[in-house]
């Protein structure tokens, strides 16, 4: 049996909103990325798996337990990190995490020990005795991760763990997620709308859109040979795009960056010449390995995901 298994899982809120639409997927242990744009149904899926939201129709099992009837048993072995703020500002990290450890069923002594253990694991030391109200966003995200880990769950559900973090904070959080999954052998599901982040830590990807499964496959299967070259200029991105298009390249403008499809070595020279001839202030040229985006670009009528937005929510880049 799979770690998680859903069959025709559907969730409607009222008659108007369909969050999940006949989702059928099996998820095996590992670090699994659950990707989809905002409103794709990621959070709803996680809440159904926790037994917090009743599906409208269809079935789902977690650790071979039915989410409709065995919710409390499932939650005993699952850790959940919500997307939004969920920490009382007047409590310290130690207070809230050890309290939640008790609620997770740990005896008092074990709760205290595990609290010290997980707070150390997420990198909170002397500040853990201070009130959470004074914490940075990064520290709060670590406390949220710690409370999800404190009862040593078999499965960890993380909803947008890098939400609101700066680039360095995102890197550290992703590294924590990766270590939690690989070194401790814990099954992790990371929901995110940022493909660029998720592919750095995941072994398997489940892509959903509009509540339906787009694709579920090991990360390697998603990666295609063609990549994207991002040319970032301070100004004149439109002029550059026009010029490159005239040169016969496939080009997308994404804010100050011009994304060029790489099929062979040809674009590098063309980009160099174009930037030089137009006299544009070039910031950087980098190869973006966001082949995953193609997955969404191929979907007719669907807007592609933002490739790597610094903060959510980000403006979506236009379709090609």
């Amino acid at each position, binding site marked *: 049996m799979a770690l998680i298994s859903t069959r025709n899982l559907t969730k409607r809120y009222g008659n108007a909103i369909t969050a999940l639409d006949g989702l059928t997927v099996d998820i095996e242990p590992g670090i699994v990325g659950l990707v989809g744009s905002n409103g794709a149904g990621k959070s709803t899926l996680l809440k159904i798996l926790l037994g917090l939201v009743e599906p409208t129709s269809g079935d789902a099992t977690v650790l071979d337990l039915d989410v409709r009837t065995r*919710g409390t048993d499932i939650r005993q072995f699952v850790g*959940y990190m919500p997307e939004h703020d969920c920490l009382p*500002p007047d409590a310290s990290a130690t207070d809230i995490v050890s309290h939640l450890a*008790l*609620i997770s069923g740990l005896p008092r002594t074990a709760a205290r020990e595990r609290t010290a253990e997980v707070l150390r694991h997420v990198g909170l030391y002397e500040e853990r005795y201070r009130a959470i109200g004074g914490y940075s966003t990064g520290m709060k995200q670590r406390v949220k991760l710690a409370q999800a880990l404190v009862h040593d769950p078999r499965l960890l559900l993380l909803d947008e763990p890098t939400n609101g973090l700066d680039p360095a904070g995102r890197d550290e959080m992703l590294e924590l997620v990766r270590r939690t999954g690989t070194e401790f052998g814990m099954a992790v599901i990371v929901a995110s709308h940022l493909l660029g982040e998720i592919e750095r830590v995941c072994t398997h990807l489940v892509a959903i859109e509009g509540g339906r499964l787009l694709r579920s496959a090991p990360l390697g299967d998603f990666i295609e040979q063609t990549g994207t070259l991002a040319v970032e200029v301070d100004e004149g991105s439109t002029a550059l795009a026009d010029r490159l298009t005239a040169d016969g390249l496939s080009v997308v403008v994404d804010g100050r960056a011009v994304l060029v499809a790489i099929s062979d070595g040809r674009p590098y020279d063309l980009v160099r010449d174009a930037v030089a001839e137009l006299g544009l202030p070039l910031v950087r040229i980098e190869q973006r390995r966001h082949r995953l985006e193609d997955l969404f670009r191929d979907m007719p009528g669907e807007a592609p995901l933002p490739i790597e937005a610094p903060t959510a929510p980000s403006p979506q880049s236009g379709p090609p």
Partner: protein
Amino acid sequence: MTDAGTTAGSSVTAGPTGSIYDIGYRRYEGPRLGRGHAIQSLFWHSLRSTFGIGRGGRAKIAPVILVGLALLPAIAIVGALTMAAQFGVGSRFATNAPIRYDTYFSTISTIVVLFCAAQAPELFGRDQRHGVLALYFARALRRSDYALARVAGFVAALLIIELAPQVLLFFGRVLLSPDILGAIGDDLPSIGPVLAQAILSAALLGGLSMAVAAFTPRRAYATAGIIALFTIPNIVAGTVLGLGSSLIGTWLLLLSPTSVLDGTNSILFGTALGSDFFFIDLPNIAYIAAALAGIVGSIAITVRRFARIAT
């Protein structure tokens, strides 16, 4: 523990706080006590939080003052009894003192109501305001467990507030009496009514306060709502009575929790309601039924609220 200490110390010099150190992770192999343990833990947490224990100094101000006020009449009477005993009139004073087991509830009912208004929003409002519900509901706990454990913790806190002064009063009366065994014998029959009244009033006032607090994350709204619930029915019934429609007004008083509890108090202690109570015509069963209906109804409303609340 020394490991953690030295690592924490070195982190100051090693770089910015919050850096990640690889010192391993141990699995937890111990017992998982499940739902019952979770409910119990939440109950104790609620009881402690109601008094501000385990929280900052500011959270303790209101409960400490109100508990002090609730104890004040008992302290005053015990003090007066001590004085009276010095002058050899202790037993006469003990019999005629205005504050006795049967009058204590009405003496401090306003303080208990204020305590409800101040502290009930601390429990439910805080969890809703900061989104903590999502963390509770993601654990081995049902939504109804959460609601019931919180309500039970708050009711237990009210029980302490109501019973502590009575216990003080009991010890004062007994120990200051020349005939201690006799005094115990005299006061023992009051234990039943004292307990019954405390349980009824704590459950009714606590249940209603928590039902109001469950509906808003905003502290001020909850406090105002609780005070309104405990005062407005009284005012309405009094107004109706003042207009001369005494039958309707009398029955309307059953909507006022504090009046209902005055009624149960007089039934339990077998005392006649004085002329300042204008609802003496109601049958005894009406007060008890109204109190029980209020308790069951308010708890049902609270459970229903948390069964539906979005997280």
